[in-house]
């Protein structure tokens, strides 16, 4: 554990020694701010329109969570599909290319500790970034009266999604010494998780049911609407576990080639 934290500390500091981390955070927060502004503006226009029509039944149903936070979180999830590969592509690929891999693998630490260290750092980076995006709900809380529990559940969903993405990114990075290949294959895998249920929408066999279960947006959407279901938690946690397990195997197997 101590060794993992040593590596995590070095990795996390390493993100900020390069401009990539700042660029990724800036892009994420700028886009987040843009979504927030656009959705809030649209909400306001809708609200004014329905007030003018004197339609209290519809007005009752308009709320900040559904109209602003939910769509914003869905958009940010898509943004992460593109940004996460940029963050994780270096993790193993660069070490292999520059030869520092030899330092890590000859140090008296287990491969599991190396993987855990890199995972902790990448996950912490995501939590910092998503934490900063927490300013949007804070603004709503300051000026309106949204449901805090629902927003919390949505952000928890986004955090779990980001951490799952990061685990997949670590895995693809561990397969190659080329950062571009690591990034592209990570991007492919993440996008696939979003669209994997498409064949299942026609309905039918058990296999298609499996695809439906694997589909990430379904589980994410549940959390965004404020439902924290153990099935969805298990889904994300098993995604993380499987990806990290494969990463550990892949790092270990590199020794045997």
């Amino acid at each position, binding site marked *: 554990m101590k*060794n993992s934290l*040593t*590596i995590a500390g*070095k990795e996390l*500091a*390493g993100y900020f*020694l*390069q401009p990539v981390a700042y660029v990724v955070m800036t892009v994420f927060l700028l886009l987040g701010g843009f979504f927030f502004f656009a959705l809030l503006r649209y909400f306001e226009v809708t609200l004014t329109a329905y007030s003018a029509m004197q339609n209290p039944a519809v007005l009752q149903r308009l709320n900040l969570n559904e109209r602003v936070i939910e769509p914003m979180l869905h958009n940010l999830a898509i943004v992460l599909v593109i940004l996460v590969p940029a963050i994780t592509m270096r993790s193993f690929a660069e070490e292999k290319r*520059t*030869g*520092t*891999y*030899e*330092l*890590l*693998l*000859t*140090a*008296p*630490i*287990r491969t599991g500790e190396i993987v855990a260290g890199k995972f902790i750092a990448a996950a912490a980076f995501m939590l910092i970034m998503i934490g900063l995006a927490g300013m949007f709900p804070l603004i709503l809380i300051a000026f309106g009266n949204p449901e805090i529990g629902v927003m919390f559940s949505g952000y928890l969903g986004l955090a779990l999604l980001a951490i799952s993405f990061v685990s997949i990114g670590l895995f693809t990075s561990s397969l190659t010494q080329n950062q571009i290949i690591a990034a592209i294959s990570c991007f492919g895998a993440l996008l696939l998780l979003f669209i994997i249920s498409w064949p299942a929408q026609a309905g039918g066999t058990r296999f298609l049911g499996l695809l439906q279960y694997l589909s990430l947006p379904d589980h994410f959407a549940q959390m965004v609407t404020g439902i924290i279901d153990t099935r969805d938690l298990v889904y994300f946690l098993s995604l993380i576990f499987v990806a990290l397990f494969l990463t550990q195997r892949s790092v270990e197997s590199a*020794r*045997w*080639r």
Partner: protein
Amino acid sequence: MIEVKNLTKAYGDFVAIRDVSFKAESGSILGFLGPNGAGKTTTMRIITGYMPATAGTVLIDGLDIFSQSLEARRKIGYLPENPPLYLDMRVEAYLRFVAKLRGMPRAKIEPALDHVLEVCGLTDMSHRICGQLSKGYRQRVGLAQALIHDPPVLVLDEPTIGLDPRQIHEIRGLIHHLAGNRTVVLSTHILPEVSQICDKVVIIADGRVVLEEYLKQLPGGTSLEDIFLAAITKERHDEGASAEEKLEEVGAGHT
């Protein structure tokens, strides 16, 4: 002490080293010689636990590098062929990271850091970013990294490559001074280096050990160069001979 026993390493069909055995005693410097591609780096990577051998074992002070890997690796300081530096870290931060990675207690890190910086002539460079250092200084940081936890076994893969003559002189002096009661294995293809600082020489050619001898016991009058050339050409010769024999056998089969 390092005992290398019957190491064989195959990459797929290609056999890089075959049945390599030698012994490096504590308090001595072993020069590991061989032409390019002879299997020096492969052997060193197996000794340091970077990869397992296809067959055979290595004992580091009696610990098996494969089955007691973590304990054995703790005893080794390793300088790979390319110094393993994180190019965007500062020298100081990098060395601290390596010290922690090798399990040094926190209290011992700072004195050890000052010590290796001084020994490797890096005191003025400690705030520099690794990526901005010249090749020679990178090599020194690599050496400092191998030394920081004061390991009883040092494995150095071509430690003087890329240095200017004055630096080479300094680094050789340093290695000589370091030996003390440590076990040092250094690979090189610079022959005078071996005759200057090593106690023992192992010559490897085409993946096989062709000579293991104390420098003192080498026949007087012959230079190391002659011995080296004789050792590696003898190897080639044998192979040539066996190939000819095979051809003859094939011919015999046909007639």
